């Protein structure tokens, strides 16, 4: 376990250097990945694992893929999904896909062995924490995916990493026991069936200890992220959110996914999806 942690720390530092050198200019590619696993986690959530023939380039939490869903008459554009995990050795990436509409539904019906055209890695990742940071990760719905990825590769000791996961009900929470050693996990459900009752922003960790964190990261439904951002902004805390604006291309050419920021309309797919709340026009 300690060896693993040391290894992760090393990789994290390496990543940070590579990342700085390339200044987020990792080459995007379009390739056919092999679906090697498709596991239903609960009613609406599936864990899909895709394998590349060639070695993967470096991928960071907050980055995403844009997937072509060929097997449905009525889907035209690709669908973006955050990367939840990367296994460089086996050349796989994992996605947490929640059924929202037609595209996500058909994607979860893909069978291992099928090829999926994927454009990746896309977008700018979360700012990685500094070695002594105490961080709070807040994930809601499928927004837990990049939070788990960040918890895994941030290279901090488990006691530095706190994560609140929100969902409507216990049955909507996905099983993330494998992350237990990496962070302190807290739950909130709207019906109180798991963890605290209420939204993530009602969790005592959020209401009473927010200022004890150096960095706050969040991904999930807009109202949740806005509530988090509001409190963080009030207290002048570092806070990054990952937006999910609808996209056409995903790689910065169509200008469809823009967020109205303090610097004008910026593309979420290339200038984001991760934004520092200070750049957004959310807080009022």
């Amino acid at each position: 376990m300690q060896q693993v942690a040391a290894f992760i720390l090393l990789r994290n530092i390496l990543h940070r250097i590579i990342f700085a050198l390339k200044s987020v200019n990792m080459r995007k590619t379009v390739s056919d990945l092999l679906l090697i696993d498709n596991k239903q986690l609960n009613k609406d959530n599936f864990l899909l694992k895709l394998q590349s023939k060639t070695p993967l380039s470096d991928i960071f939490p907050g980055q995403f893929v844009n997937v072509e869903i060929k097997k449905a008459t009525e889907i035209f554009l690709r669908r973006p999904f955050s990367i939840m995990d990367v296994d460089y050795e086996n050349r796989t990436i994992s996605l947490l896909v929640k059924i929202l509409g037609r595209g996500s539904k058909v994607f979860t019906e893909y069978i291992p062995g099928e090829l999926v055209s994927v454009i990746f890695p896309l977008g700018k990742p979360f700012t990685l924490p500094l070695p002594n940071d105490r961080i709070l990760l807040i994930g809601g719905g499928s927004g837990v995916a990049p939070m788990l990825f960040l918890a895994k590769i941030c290279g901090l000791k488990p006691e530095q990493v706190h994560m609140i996961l929100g969902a409507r009900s216990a049955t909507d929470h996905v099983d993330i026991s494998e992350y237990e050693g990496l962070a302190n996990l807290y739950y909130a459900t709207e019906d109180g069936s798991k963890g605290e009752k209420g939204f993530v922003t009602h969790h005592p960790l959020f209401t009473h200890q927010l200022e004890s964190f150096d960095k706050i990261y969040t991904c999930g439904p807009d109202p949740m992220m806005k509530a988090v951002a509001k409190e963080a902004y009030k207290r002048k805390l570092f806070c990054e959110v990952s937006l999910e604006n609808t996209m056409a291309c995903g790689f910065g050419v169509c200008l469809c996914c823009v967020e109205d920021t303090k610097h004008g309309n910026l593309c979420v797919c290339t200038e984001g999806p991760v934004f520092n709340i200070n750049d957004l026009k959310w807080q009022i």
Partner: protein
Amino acid sequence: MADLSIKIHDILFKNPVLTASGTCGFGKEIQDFVNLESLGGVVMKGTTLNPREGNSYPRMAETPSGMLNAVGLQNKGVDNFVRNIYPGIKDIDTHFIVNVNGSTIEEYIAVTERINELEKIPAIELNISCPNVKEGGMAFGVSCPAAEAVVKAVRKVYNKTLIVKLSPNITSITEIAKVCEAQGADSVSLINTLLGMAVDAEKRKPVLSTVTGGLSGPAVKPIALRMVWQVHNAVKIPIIGMGGIMNATDAIEFILAGASAVQIGTGIFKDPDIFEKTISGIESYLDRHKLHSISELIGKLQM
């Protein structure tokens, strides 16, 4: 091996496949996927005199076999293009074409004059067909007198290749094409997007912030092909065809209908390798049909 080159006015293009304006940025943005020097040309994002923020989000709606966009010509203005973008593209070996926009004739002229100074820009595409701006844009492209006025004015200040981009939101596209030809346009490109709308039934609201937007993608291909064919029968200047091209077969269809070259827009959102595949697909089509050059196909539909 067949000759893929084609000529539009006095420009020789390596092959007939160009990017469509507004879908490939200024070229650099797609370099991860596309070797720009393998393209016939790059038609860049619509440029205006002053910077524009474009319309508010949401600007996009997926539709059956297509999409609506309401970007509204977001761009940093012609000065920024001249200063910050042109230097980075001028030495790339393909033809970069500027898509020129304006709210008034004066603005079209002002942008054109700035571009005219740039040695390595051999042509402009005069966009009189953007459906997503409140002033100018499509208004110039759906009325013969308005089209006449803007083409005439721009022609006066521009002596390189002038391509006029036509709107499909019109009763008779041939009339506008003829007006452009008469005013000295060297080529027409068509079609820009069709004015459409999407409704969110659950929220009981329009999907786009602007209510209407421009429809593109395979859904519009039959309309685009018809218009290219009609214009081909109406004017002598070369036509650049587009609208829903997703592969080499689609491109060949446009060329047979009368296009000398084609542009691909929305297709790259689905498949960033589309240019490479289309160009090589056209090549193998020519070989398979024992044709020596693209010109043997242009407008060669058997009736």
